[in-house]
């Protein structure tokens, strides 16, 4: 039995919005009942979030496309009345455009903001994985076809030969926050994590970048070590949210430095000047 799913690789996504625009082309003015009514302006059935972290010049930008996750335990289904939302045998969660009329509660039930309200039609609406196309023999929804870098991988999660099943088996596919108990059929790779970055300068040699300076980051449990690169830059990636760390810098001949950093603050700790020991 087919069970559709998608893996979204945030590391690959370039933020081109092809997915959003292909979705709009498929659905704007096009009624695909019974799986979806026409999409009005203002809806983003796949919404690309721009996430900017850090500060000049240590900046990272990620693009996180968010369609309906077709949750295994879908809160919208609990909120729906009279069978207005149902899960097909292939796992796709469908809002019935006829039965869902007037049910505004479905919009607020979604923790991911993936359900949109159509005021003119008095209707909640969302991504259907282009179920009308899949039913017509298509292999993938429009957003996936449009992606230029295969950041969206779609297929049958139960077919071990499918790309999407292979990714799930081989890589650490994560759930989008807020994380549900069970990984939804739409999972993510490379979701932006907390990081710390900075630049080390030696006080007596300000015109040379010090390469290979030891930088350590520790919390209560463990210590990770990094070395500055040829620009004197260092970086720690993949850190826990809401955690306190101690950053310590050591270089022979220089006074060691220590500073407390928190993942809620600017991850760019800036330029740290090391003064000679004597």
């Amino acid at each position, binding site marked *: 039995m087919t069970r559709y799913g998608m893996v979204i690789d945030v590391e*690959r*996504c*370039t*933020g*081109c*919005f*092809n997915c*959003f*625009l*292909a979705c*709009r*082309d*498929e659905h*704007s*003015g*096009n009624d695909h009942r019974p799986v979806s009514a026409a999409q009005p*302006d*203002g809806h*983003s059935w796949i919404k690309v979030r*721009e996430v*900017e972290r*850090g*500060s*000049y*010049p240590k*900046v*990272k*930008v*990620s*693009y996180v496309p968010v369609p309906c996750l077709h949750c295994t335990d879908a809160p919208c289904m609990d909120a729906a009345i009279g069978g207005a939302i149902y899960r097909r045998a292939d796992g796709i969660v469908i809002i019935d455009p006829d039965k869902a009329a007037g049910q505004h509660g479905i919009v607020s039930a979604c923790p991911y903001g993936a359900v949109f309200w159509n005021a003119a039609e008095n209707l909640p609406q969302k991504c259907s994985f282009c179920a009308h196309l899949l039913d017509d023999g298509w292999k993938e929804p*429009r957003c996936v*076809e*449009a992606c*230029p*870098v*295969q950041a969206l991988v779609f297929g049958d999660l139960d077919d071990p030969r499918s790309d999407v099943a292979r990714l799930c088996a081989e890589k650490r596919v994560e759930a989008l926050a807020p994380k549900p108990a069970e990984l939804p059929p739409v999972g993510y790779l490379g979701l932006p994590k907390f990081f710390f970055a900075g630049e080390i*300068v030696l006080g007596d040699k*300000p*015109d*040379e*970048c010090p390469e290979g300076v030891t930088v350590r980051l520790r919390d209560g449990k463990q210590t990770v070590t990094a070395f500055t690169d*040829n*620009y*004197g*830059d260092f970086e720690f990636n993949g850190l826990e949210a809401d955690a306190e760390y101690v950053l310590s810098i050591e270089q022979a001949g220089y006074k060691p430095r220590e500073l407390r950093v928190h993942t809620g603050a600017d991850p760019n700790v800036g330029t740290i000047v090391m003064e000679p020991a004597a």
Partner: protein
Amino acid sequence: MAAQDFTSCTNAGPITVTVEDGKVVRVRPLVAEQGDFRPWTIEAGGRSYSPPKKFNLAPFVFSERDRLYSQDRIKTPLKRVNFDPGPAGKRNPESRGKAGYEPIGWDEAIEIVAGELKRVKDAHGPSAIAAMTSSHHNWGMVGYKMSAFTRFFNLIGHTPVLDNPDSWEGWHWGATHSYGFYWRLGMPEPYDMLEDALQNAEMIVFWSNDPDTTRGVYTGQDAAIWRQWLKDKGVKMVFIDPFHNYTAAAMGGKWIAPRIGTDTAMAMAIAHVWITERTYDQEYVKDRTVGFDEFRDYILGKQDGCPKTPAWAAEQSGIAARTIKALAREWASRRTVLSAGARGGEGGACRQAYGTEWARMMVLLQAMQGLGKPGISIWGTSMGAPVNADVGFPGYGDPEGRISTTRAAVACPENPVTQRLYRPIVPDAILNPPIHWLGDGFCNRSLDQQFTPHTYPEPGCSEVKLWYRYGGSFMGTMTDTSKWARMYQSPKLEFVVNQDVWWSSETGFADIILPACTQLERDDIGEWGEPGGQTRHGNSGCNFRVVVRMKKCISPLWESKSDYEIFTLLARRLGVEAQYTEGNTDRDWARKIFEISDLPKRVSWEEFERKGYHIINAPEHRKATPGLRWFAEGRACDTPDPRNPKRGTVKARELGTDSGKIEFVSGSLHKVFPGDTQRPPMPHFIPSWEGHQSPLAAKYPLQLLSPHPRFSFHTHYDKHAHWMDEVPLHRVVKDGYAYWPARLHPEDARARGIENGDVIKLYNDRGGVLCAAVVTERVRRGVVHSPVSSAKYDPLEPGNPHSVDRGGCVALLTPGRMMSQNVAGMAPNSCLIEVEKWNG
């Protein structure tokens, strides 16, 4: 009714168009049979790289259907309400831009336009008629701007307007004098650059280049995956740009953000490090270049007492000397691709005061590292896939690809007028003649062509009385653009026509407006991504060559007609229809161009017509001929660059410079302008005439960076496809109005009481533009990033050229001054502004 699929090709990818009940319901990447694709393979580092069997469109192409049915379409012929073309009638030119329009029938419109063409020509000669197109708004050999349009105007005679290379000025006016390639307008040959990079590159320095945004001009997003491969392979990436651009966002890597106008100083400091540490390719410099000793002495300060050290460059650029040194050392120690503009780049550094100097320095830096050796190239990262260069199909840049000049025609009328106008200074010419400039715009015939003197009006010719405008983008794309509004309101222009598909920034300045249709409403033919001519083999930015039969999917909407039909009607009225059409429909022309190409050797017209496309795969057994490898190795040119004039001659080992080598001191400049201090024979760092050190910075302390936009093709698809308004990176909707974004640093915002999302006014003495503030760490302090190319010109006081614009035409703010005294290139990125919160 059953759905029917049609094929077409846009300026950013081939498409399949689904029509139901006479209405387009879907536009998707061209659906081709999987068996038609035979992907190439590149072996590198123990891996095989092959592209997926698909076509990757630029984002805006997905809004084609929205643009087709846009309420912004010009629906009927229109006449300005207070325009009376009669002999005694009042024309009221001063009210252009504010007066309204009334619909008229096609008969009346054609009668007025043809009547005015005849009247002006009879009274003043054909030079009094000027005709000007915009760029790139459609695709196809029949409908492209140099084709149906030019055939008509050559037939009746007119003053053409020379284009400036507005997207890559410095390469055209500068780099050509360092390494030739004038036949490519300053851009290097792209052959097999992808394979070279995958096999050999250890680092890529993207310098003022954002290929994920500019996408090889026409080639959609086919190259995006190449950069992913390079990233996955561990190729280190460095981005030098005052804006943390979209390629940087996608790739990660080191971001270095110099002040605008100081890139040349940074480049010279890099040369200083290499010279003093002897980490340049001395043998290459000795054998393959001329003038190095003089250059070395300049860099070391022996000429002017100012060594171009990293510390000196740090003062200019705001980048620490240690960072410049580290970059220089890393660059010299790794096989490094310099991805610096030149097709796929087109950032700010080549389009500012003295941008020639920066572009020349890019060539000279790579010359110091052995340009052409494995992994050492100038490559925008968006052209240079394996390609079959043996199968010929003309592009719009080729005479054969235009119905105005093609040998597929029985005869091609020649324009009798020798007078020229020059695009960036058309309003200056109309308002304040005489004016003078150097160069024929796109100078692809010789290095000397840049020095051709022009005067308007030309002796024996008339000033322009009739302005026939096709498209209308310039308020958003040229420089100091309020002068276009002033020009339009001048009584010197007795008659103004605008022919376009949509309402654009100049449309509302016309006396008569003619509604054209889109390419989905007419027949044509075209190869994806191939401009031909000076960008021959631009199709190597696509993973598969594909020629598309661009089909008429639906009948022209409302009262619109194809450009070809409009010109046919005008020709009929003027009694020259037979000469114009030679009895051909647009579909007939498409077939004739097919017939003179190499396609009939591979596929019949009937089969091509049935399928709608033909893929030309890269050869199965191919031998890579990487660009400039021949030069580095002292061999005859072996790349398939058809316009290289020395190729196949006894000089085949030489570049296109006078000496045949890379010239640190340019012979072509020395010959003509030995004493030019603004583009000296050897590149110099010259502080900008409008930069952070200018006196004007006291009043306008922020520098405006306006590179190409990410979500439109110049102005195309902006405004006319309202779906694009919902891409929050493209426009920011506030209180129901879609504002153009302006990105500024949090400290600059805070100092002015500006918060993210506020409507702000960008202004200087040239104008004021309202934008939505995007407060971001992605720009350095002192820089405001707001792309050029808003299609929407929305003055708060219509008809007042000095009005604040709400549409986002930041080009209103940029200087009209040319790059330097002998360089007729525009310099929009030398622009000082101030910003304030708008409470209007």
